[in-house]
């Protein structure tokens, strides 16, 4: 997930060193489902965990513009081009709201950007896979935005107010993206043989990486317990993954596509699908920055940042000149 803890094992934040009375009050408020606001007291570990989670989510939205942006100039018709442009633009907007939400916790956007560009901060593993055909745009909307919604709908009730409110806005758009993506797939799956093949190939390549988006299995997820207690997270990785599989498999079947998992089977007793093992070795490799197009993604972000430096500097200098001019005008008018 965009928000899955990718910080690695053994770095779980703890609230051990905090004032016990303050901590108790805080935990009681969270347990009562009250929102914590920027000015409220909060444990340092809560603040740090949130900064990591929200900034990682923001970075995911921004890096996520690249694989889909890759197809804007090649969209197959004017309507699809407009929809894709608007979609990628939405993702940029999500990145902005989330950076703003993180800033309320005392970290600047420049600091967060630096952390991304230096490789210190993580972003969702899913964006380290390439978009090879137009069907990948359908698959991303359907599966990736679909998985994102699954995680983010509960986050609308997350304990940190600015994050919860950002999620409300974002979720509306993500569900729109999911439907548009599915609609692309539906169209391809009902199209020519070549289009069907393209759609099936995209599902084959995106299925497992989509399941990985929910993060490591619960028994290997170091921060889950604390995060659940603080209501930064509201469901475990495995619960969300199961829910995603249960909702998505019938959608694939409905349009005649096959989920690439021979072990996939409806379990009558559980009322859920049993499914095969995710390749966690691949997941951890991608988290380490060894994904297929990880270097391309980082290079693209670094290039945009470096090539844009003179523009940002010009805007800053111009704004300063204006401010000085306005002050002189104000003095002159006195």
């Amino acid at each position, binding site marked *: 997930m965009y928000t899955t803890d990718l910080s690695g094992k053994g770095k779980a934040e703890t609230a051990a060193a905090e004032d016990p009375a303050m901590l108790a009050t805080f935990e009681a408020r969270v347990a009562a489902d009250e929102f914590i606001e920027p000015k409220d007291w909060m444990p340092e570990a809560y603040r740090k965990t949130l900064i990591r989670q929200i900034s990682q989510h923001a970075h995911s939205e921004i890096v996520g*513009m690249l694989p889909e942006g890759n197809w*804007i100039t*090649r969209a197959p018709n*004017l309507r699809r081009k407009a929809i894709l442009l608007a979609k990628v633009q939405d993702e940029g907007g999500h990145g902005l709201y989330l950076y703003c939400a993180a800033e309320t916790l005392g970290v600047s956007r420049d600091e967060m950007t630096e952390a991304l560009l230096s490789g210190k901060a993580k972003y969702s593993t899913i964006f380290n896979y390439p978009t090879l055909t137009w069907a990948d745009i359908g698959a991303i909307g359907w599966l990736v935005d679909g998985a994102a919604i699954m995680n983010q709908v509960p986050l609308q009730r997350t304990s940190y107010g600015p994050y919860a409110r950002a999620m409300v806005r974002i979720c509306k758009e993500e569900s729109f993206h999911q439907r548009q993506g599915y609609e692309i797939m539906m169209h391809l799956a009902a199209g020519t043989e*070549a289009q069907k093949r393209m759609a099936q190939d995209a599902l084959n390549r995106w299925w497992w990486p989509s399941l990985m988006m929910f993060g490591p299995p619960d028994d290997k997820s170091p921060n889950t317990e604390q995060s659940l207690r603080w209501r930064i997270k509201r469901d475990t990785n495995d619960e969300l993954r199961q829910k995603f599989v249960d909702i998505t498999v019938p959608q694939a079947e409905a349009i005649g596509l096959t989920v690439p998992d021979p072990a996939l089977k409806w379990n009558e007793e559980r009322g859920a699908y049993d499914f095969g093992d995710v390749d966690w070795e691949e997941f951890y490799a991608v988290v380490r920055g060894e994904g297929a197009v990880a270097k391309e993604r980082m290079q693209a972000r670094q290039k945009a940042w470096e090539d844009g430096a003179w523009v940002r500097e010009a805007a800053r200098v111009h704004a300063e000149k204006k401010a000085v001019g306005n002050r002189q005008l104000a003095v002159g008018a006195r």
Partner: protein
Amino acid sequence: MVSALPPLADYAARLGDDSLVLGQRLGEWCGHAPAIEVDLSLSNVALDLIGQATHFLGLAGAIEGAGRDADKLAFHRDVMDFSNCLLVEQPNGDFAQTIARQFLFSHYQALLFEQMAQVKDERFAAIAAKALKEVNYHATLASDWVVRLGDGTDESKARMIAGLDWMWRFTDELFAMDDVDAAAIAAGAGVDKAALRADWDARVDAVLAEATLARPAARRAIVGGRVGRHSEHLGHLLSEMQFLQRAYPGASW
């Protein structure tokens, strides 16, 4: 294979092609702009332009009456049948070059649509009236950047001058009139573009002055886009844009 459009359809296609090609160019920036806010504003402009292209090309196809819709015209014509002006097909270059192109074009388009919103042919008038609001915003956005970059740092000023210098030779074409324009005016759909020149000069000069930039020196105009004589850049733009429709003939998307 249908190629040449009847005059009024050609007139609509010129308008559509201008918006389409520039929208396509701006789409290239997506994910790569100097800041997220800039990225969002460029894709906003691109989105408006693609919308205009859809309307004007749809109208061109309807006037032609040969069963071609906007997509057919956008994705199944070659360079010699595209009739956009040369300015919009120029490469993005750096951000200043992109802004120079937008600035020069959007002020032209704003003046054009102000007039077109009042023509007798309601089809043209309606598209222009709706687009005018968008285009006024594009002109303001681009002008603000010309001022920021022109009156920013030494580097941004030098880049802004270079961007304007690249684009300037293609500006005369915006105001050139030919038989297609005359036919459109006679049909109650066209605008006398030559008559827009003085206002365009005034608007452009005012922004350049605020940006502490000199107006680029007059130079020999490069023209030909309206009759399919393009720069080398357009073929590459089309080969990318039209790839799926060309590679999978007859498929619906």
